[in-house]
């Protein structure tokens, strides 16, 4: 886990990591959320609707925005204060996602940073983007 202090952070600082979306993550998210929409749980239904298979929950993939700031940028001293997400492409089981973030603004008075983040798939296509507001606690 990274432990960036507020004084370490500058505009343009970047971090990223990769994750594979396997079926067990879908099962666990279903258990937590109880979102039984057939697009996510029934592959035949998803195929009938024109998708190659079950569509991964958007908020499952977005949970990695939490990981981005809570573990990587800034990491330990993070307090997630707000997030604005836009989805652009579906994600499927076994996709490999890269979650990347870059510091775009620093509020010196209140020790808050904004991270512009994107998630891309194994074909380097953007599947979502987010603006994340993060408080950085004193160490």
């Amino acid at each position: 886990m990274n432990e960036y202090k507020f004084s370490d952070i500058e505009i343009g600082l970047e971090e990223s990591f990769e994750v594979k979306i396997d079926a067990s993550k879908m099962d666990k998210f279903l258990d937590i959320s109880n979102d039984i929409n057939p697009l996510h749980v029934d592959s035949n239904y998803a195929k009938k609707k024109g998708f190659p298979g079950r569509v991964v929950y958007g908020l499952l993939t977005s949970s990695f925005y939490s990981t981005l700031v809570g573990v990587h940028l800034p990491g330990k001293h993070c307090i997630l204060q707000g997030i604005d997400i836009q989805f652009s492409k579906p994600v499927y089981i076994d996709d490999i996602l890269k979650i990347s973030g870059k510091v775009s603004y620093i509020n010196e008075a209140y020790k808050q940073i904004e991270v512009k983040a994107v998630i891309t798939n194994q074909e380097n296509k953007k599947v979502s983007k987010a603006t994340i507001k993060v408080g950085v606690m004193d160490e």
Partner: protein
Amino acid sequence: MTRKELFDGVQDIFRDIFDEDDMVIEDKTSSDDIEDWDSLNHINLVSAIEKEFEIRFALGELMALKDVGAMIDLMIEKLK
């Protein structure tokens, strides 16, 4: 930029942050007058103003502000 133009810009930011298209603020408006003006939305306001007007505030300056009018006056000083 005139004080009126500055004020109108700040009012647009308030409308965006508090999600009220017809919100009207005055010089004497303070956090006591807007129910959702909590600590997080206060940071959101300051951040939006800093970015829109390309100015930066120090914590001490912000702590001394008592209402919107005082914020506008501080912005005028910084934009000189």
